[in-house]
């Protein structure tokens, strides 16, 4: 192929078209434009800004910097002054204080058994001056008053270890090694699991326990088979303690921070029994936010159009047992929250 002739036909067309075009310039219009440009040139000559003065150009060049620098310095000074006078306040709801901040620690002489050959030395043990005694009675705890209780617990106790009263008030617990003590402040709800009859109640006062050996749930009240059970909400508000949880020791010992689940079983009877000597609750340290399961979400998850009578029993912030009464029948559902979506995990007919 001739390299020079590929576009030759079209280029020739353009040349011919240009000849045909013959655009003429209006000489009057051209002269008028020239006159206008002359007038403009005279104005440019008369304008002082066009003079080639070194001082003028220097001022024009630097005036922006000279004005801008003080203004920017002033702005920076104002920002620094405002920042130094600002105080940051942390909302109480979002702040999870440490134990020491909640309850000031006061040293107190406590006798500790160390060596039989040596006299028991008095060691100072930190205690809470506002320690409250545990009330194992079945009286109702006011719902609007969180119960603050401090317990000394023994961590990592094997499951075979017989159950010991884990919670001992400060005044009557002398025989615990000081090195293994761990003070825990309450204001946390302990929602323990129960292996009884589908009941998941954990009602009771809010108290904390950090030991595996004593991590049995105790709502402080016996539960009735037909009595609806209310649970402690995650917002640290106690509920009336109507049921008791009968928690086998094997399910509870050995787990402090563990996952507590409610095995609903096949029995609809939610009655549980709770060891009245164990009455401490613990809630995983979480921001105190309400994580209630809405009716809409529940309907969507259990695929029921109308839920006439629904009771939600929270195990923790992400798990709940739902008691649904439909057409005279009571059904239980285990629901779990995953990525802010509640889903039915297990259904018990």
């Amino acid at each position, binding site marked *: *192929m001739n*390299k*020079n002739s*590929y*576009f030759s*036909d*079209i*280029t*020739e*067309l*353009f*040349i*011919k*078209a*240009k*000849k*045909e*075009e*013959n*655009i003429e*310039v*209006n000489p009057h*219009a*051209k002269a*008028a*434009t*020239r006159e*206008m*440009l*002359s007038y*403009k*040139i005279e104005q*440019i*000559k008369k304008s002082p800004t066009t003079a080639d003065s070194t001082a003028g150009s220097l001022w024009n060049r630097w005036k922006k910097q000279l004005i801008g620098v003080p203004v920017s310095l002033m702005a920076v000074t104002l920002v620094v002054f405002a920042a130094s006078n600002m105080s940051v306040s942390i909302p109480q709801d979002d702040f999870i204080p440490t134990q020491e901040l909640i309850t000031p620690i006061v040293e107190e002489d406590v006798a500790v058994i160390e060596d039989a050959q040596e006299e028991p030395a008095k060691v100072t043990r930190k205690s809470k001056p506002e320690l409250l005694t545990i009330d194992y009675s079945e009286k109702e705890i006011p719902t609007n008053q969180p119960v603050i209780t401090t317990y000394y617990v023994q961590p990592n106790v094997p499951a075979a270890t017989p159950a010991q009263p884990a919670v001992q008030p400060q005044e009557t617990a002398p025989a615990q090694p000081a090195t293994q003590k761990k003070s825990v402040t309450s204001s946390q709800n302990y929602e323990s699991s129960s292996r009884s009859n589908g009941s998941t109640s954990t009602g009771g006062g809010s108290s904390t326990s950090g030991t595996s050996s004593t991590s049995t749930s105790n709502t402080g009240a016996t539960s009735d088979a037909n009595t609806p059970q209310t649970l402690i909400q995650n917002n640290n508000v106690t509920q009336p303690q109507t049921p008791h949880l009968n928690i086998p020791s094997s399910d509870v010992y050995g787990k402090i921070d563990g996952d507590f689940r409610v095995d609903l079983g096949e029995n609809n009877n939610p009655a549980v029994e709770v060891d009245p000597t164990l009455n401490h609750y613990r809630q995983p340290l979480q921001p105190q936010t309400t994580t209630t399961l809405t009716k809409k979400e529940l309907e969507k998850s259990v695929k029921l159009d109308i839920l006439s009578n629904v009771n939600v029993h929270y195990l923790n912030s992400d798990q709940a047992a739902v008691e649904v009464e439909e057409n005279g029948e009571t059904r239980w559902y285990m629901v779990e929250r995953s990525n802010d979506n509640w889903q039915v995990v297990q259904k018990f007919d």
Partner: protein
Amino acid sequence: MILDKLGEIWYKDTLILIFMPSSQDLKQEKHLVEEAQKDPDQFLALYDKYYDCIYRYIYRRTGADKDVAHDIASQTFLDALENLKSYRFQGYPFSSWLYKIAHNNVIKWYRKTSKYKYVPIEEAHTLSDKTQNSEETADNALAQDQINAMMTNLDQDEREIIKLKFYEELSNIEIAEVMGLSVSNIGVKVFRTLKKAKGLLPTKHDLKQFN
């Protein structure tokens, strides 16, 4: 203007020649521009030299409207005079800078009036009143018809390239300066535009329908 052959570029078996004004012309032009920057009165010499080609360029872009073309041309040279001190000679003819200003003013006019029209085929014959022999006139008229029919199927950039390349006879370097593109990009665009135009050319049979 005397053009020097600056070089050759082969693109897909096509020779694209690059022309540039001769170095002597460029030197003279550079001297003229520098004098105009010192003394604005010397700008009128540049005006007399380039007004006609700028006017024709605007005339083609605005769709054969003489009054509009004169107004835009006047505005172009007024803008050039006001910004003459900011012009820096970069080895390109001064006309490239004027074409660029005219190009921008035409775009502003389009945006202002929301108008864009191309010379319809029916009016193509009225553009010429040049006396030629009958055969050459007819041949040129037919070429004009073909070009007009083809141009309606090109986009604005492609029409711009054809007008600058074949009507204003600008080099690829000058076209790159006017359109704000690289020289290599312009070379490729010229090739693609010509290839597309070649495929869009109507036959003589097609043109008879409009006669």
